[in-house]
C-alpha cells in the first residue's frame, strides 16, 4: 500500500508539526531551569519525553486512522497525538498546565486525553495496551468498523501487559494494531540487553497474528505495513503486530546526558533525521521545494500559535484540583 502524494505531504506536514512542537518545548522547558537544572521549575515542570526522530512511526500509522479510530500512546506521546489529530491548542495548554488544557492541567504531558479523536496515553509502560483492546472490542461489539492502535516502545515489549493483551486480542479477534517504536533504548538500557530476540515482530507467532518488522524509520514503509494491518483489522480479520525501527534524537527525557550511548552513536543518528531524509525524497519525487517550504511554514505557524495560545491561557485555580476526580 503506497501513499498517494497528498498522503505523503500530509505525513511530511505532521512530522514537521511534531518536530516544531518539540523544538518549542525544548526552549520553554529550560526557562526557569537555569543556571541549575531543576525539573520542578519553569513553565514546564516534571519529566519531558520528546519524540524527535520517531515521527515516521506516528504519521505512517495514523495516516490510516479516522477520528473514530482509537489510539493509546505512551509517556512519549507528542508525535502520536499530533498525527492522530489531537487539538493542538488544548494539547499545548495542557502541557503548560493551563486551565483550558485537555484536562485543565490535571494530566500534563504524559496524560493527554482527547475524546474528540479518541486519543489517550499513560505513563506506565505497556499499560495503554489493554485500553486499546477495549476500544477495539467496543467497536466490534457495536458492529462498527473502527479500529484501535496501541503504540509502545521496544522496551515495553518485555512487560507482561504486552503478552496478555496480544493474546487476548488474538483470542477475541479484536480489530487492533500493536505498534512498537523500536528506538533501541529503554531509558539507558539497550534493546539487546533487555530483549531475548532481535525483533519483537517475531513475537507475533506466539499469538498467531502477523508480525512485521519495518526497517529504516521510513514513513512510506510504515504507511505500507500499517495500511495492511489497519485494513485487516477493519475487515474483521484480527490484530497485527508491527515493529518499526526508529531513532530517538533526544535523551530519554530532557536533561538526560546519554552517557550510556557508545561514543559517536548520537552523531550518527542525526545524519538519519527522518524529516530531512523524507524531504529529500519528496524533492527527488519532483515536489517543488517551495511547496514543501509552504507546508513547513504553515505547520510551524500552527504550532507556534498553539504555544502562544497556551502561554496566554490562564492557570487553573487550586480548587480545580478537587474536581473531575469523579464524573
Amino acid at each position, binding site marked *: 500500500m503506497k501513499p498517494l502524494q497528498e498522503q505523503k505531504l500530509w505525513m511530511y506536514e505532521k512530522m514537521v508539526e511534531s518536530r516544531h512542537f518539540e523544538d518549542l518545548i525544548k526552549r520553554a522547558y529550560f526557562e526557569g531551569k537555569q543556571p541549575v537544572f531543576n525539573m520542578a521549575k519553569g513553565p514546564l515542570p516534571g519529566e519531558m519525553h520528546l519524540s524527535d526522530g520517531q515521527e515516521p512511526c506516528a504519521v505512517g500509522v495514523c495516516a490510516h486512522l479516522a477520528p473514530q479510530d482509537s489510539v493509546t500512546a505512551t509517556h512519549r506521546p507528542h508525535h502520536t497525538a499530533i498525527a492522530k489529530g489531537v487539538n493542538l491548542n488544548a494539547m499545548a495548554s495542557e502541557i503548560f498546565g493551563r486551565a483550558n488544557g485537555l484536562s*485543565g492541567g490535571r494530566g500534563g504531558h504524559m496524560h493527554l486525553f482527547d475524546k474528540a479523536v479518541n486519543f489517550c496515553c499513560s505513563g506506565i509502560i505497556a499499560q495503554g495496551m489493554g485500553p486499546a483492546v*477495549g*476500544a477495539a472490542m467496543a467497536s466490534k461489539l457495536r458492529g462498527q468498523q473502527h479500529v484501535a492502535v496501541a503504540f509502545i516502545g521496544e522496551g515495553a515489549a518485555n512487560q507482561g501487559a504486552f503478552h496478555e493483551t496480544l493474546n487476548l486480542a488474538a483470542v477475541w479477534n479484536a480489530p487492533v494494531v500493536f505498534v512498537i517504536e523500536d528506538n533501541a533504548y529503554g531509558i539507558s538500557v539497550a534493546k539487546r540487553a533487555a530483549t531475548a530476540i532481535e525483533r519483537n515482530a517475531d513475537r507475533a507467532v506466539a499469538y498467531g497474528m502477523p508480525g512485521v518488522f519495518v526497517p529504516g524509520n521510513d514513513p512510506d514503509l510504515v504507511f505500507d505495513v500499517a495500511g495492511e494491518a489497519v485494513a485487516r483489522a477493519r475487515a474483521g480479520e484480527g490484530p497485527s503486530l508491527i515493529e518499526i525501527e526508529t531513532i530517538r534524537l533526544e535523551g530519554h527525557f530532557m536533561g538526560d546526558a546519554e552517557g550510556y550511548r557508545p561514543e559517536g552513536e548520537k552523531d550518527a543518528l542525526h545524519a538519519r533525521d527522518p524529516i530531512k531524509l523524507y524531504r529529500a525524497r519528496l524533492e527527488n519525487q519532483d515536489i517543488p521545494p517551495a511547496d514543501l517550504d509552504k507546508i513547513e511554514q504553515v505547520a510551524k505557524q500552527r504550532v507556534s500559535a498553539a504555544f502562544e495560545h497556551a502561554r496566554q491561557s490562564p492557570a487553573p485555580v487550586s480548587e480545580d484540583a478537587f474536581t473531575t476526580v469523579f*464524573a
Partner: protein
Amino acid sequence: MEKKRKLTIAKAMSEAIALEMRTSPEVLVMGEDIAKLGGVFGNTQGLLDEFGPDRVRDTPISETAFIGTAVGMAAAGMKPVVELMFVDFFGVCMDAIYNLAAKQSYFSGGNVTCPMVLMTSVGGGYGDAGQHSQALFATFGHLPGLKVVIPSNAYDAKGMMAAAISDPNPVVFMFHKALQGMGWLGTVPRSITHVPEERYTIALDHAHIVREGRDITLVGLGHTVHLALDAAAELEGEGIEAEVIDLRSIAPLDRETIIRSVAKTGALISVDDDYHSYGVGAEILANVAEQDDLHLKAPLKRISYPDIPVPFAPEMEHAVLPNAGKIVTAARKLLKESAHV
C-alpha cells in the same frame, strides 16, 4: 402479606446484572469462569444463557489485559462488569485499576469517564490460607478515583450492583465469601434476604444504620456487620444498647453518619476483617478523633485482622478473625471503664 423472595447475595448480584443488561446494550460481563461456569462464586449464573458469549465473556488468566480492556471499553461508553476472582490477585493487575480506571476521569478533566464495575470476592474463615482469604478493603479505599463498596446482604447487593453499573465511575464491588450464599462456603443466614423482583438502586455513598442504640456505636462492613449485630443482640441482654452501622461503602466514606452516631452514643468500636494497620478501623477512629465537639465516654476501639498473613489451620485462623465474642468483650470493657470515670 407480602410474598418474600429470599435470595442469596450471589443470586442478587446476577439478577441485578441481568436487569441492567436487559435495558442497556452497553453492559457486558468479563472475567475468568464467569460465563460457562457462572462464576466461581455464582454471581454470574444464568447470564451466558440469556445474553450469549458476546456479552458474557470468559477470559484468559490475564487480569492486566482484561481489566485494561474494560477501561478502554468504558472510555468508549460501554459499561463493563469485570470480575477479579479473588481480591488477593490484585497484585497482578493493580495498575489497570488504580492508575488507569481510577484516573481516567481526572486525566481527561472529566471528558472521558470510566463506567465500570470491578467485582471481587473478599474474606477468609474457610481455610483457604494466605493468598485467598484477604479482605484488602483499605488497599482499595486508600487510592483515589475508585468507589469501593461491600454489601452485607442480598437486598443491598442487588441495589448496590444496579447503582454501581449505572455509576459513571469505576466501582470496586467487594463481596464477602462468608455471605455469598454458595452452599459450599457456608453462609450467614441473615445475608439471605427478601429481594424485590424489580430494579432498584441503593446509594453508594451512604452508610446504613441497621440497628439503633444509644450506648455504643459498632461500625462494620460486609461480614462484620453480622458479627456486630450478633454482638448487639448479646449486649442487649446485659442492658447495653448498641447502634450498628453498616458502612456499605468505604470510598466515599460516610463520615457524618458515623460521627452523628458517636455523638449520640459516646463510644465506638470499629470492626473489620482487613489487616489492622492503615486499615478500615484506623480511618474510622481517626475521623472520630479529629472531631472537636464529641464527648466520648471511652477510648475508641478497633477490632480487625492482625498484621499477619492469613494462616491456614483453623485453630489459628479462627482465633485471629474478628467475632461477636470479641466485640462483646470489648464493648463491656469500654463501657465498664467509662462507668468508673
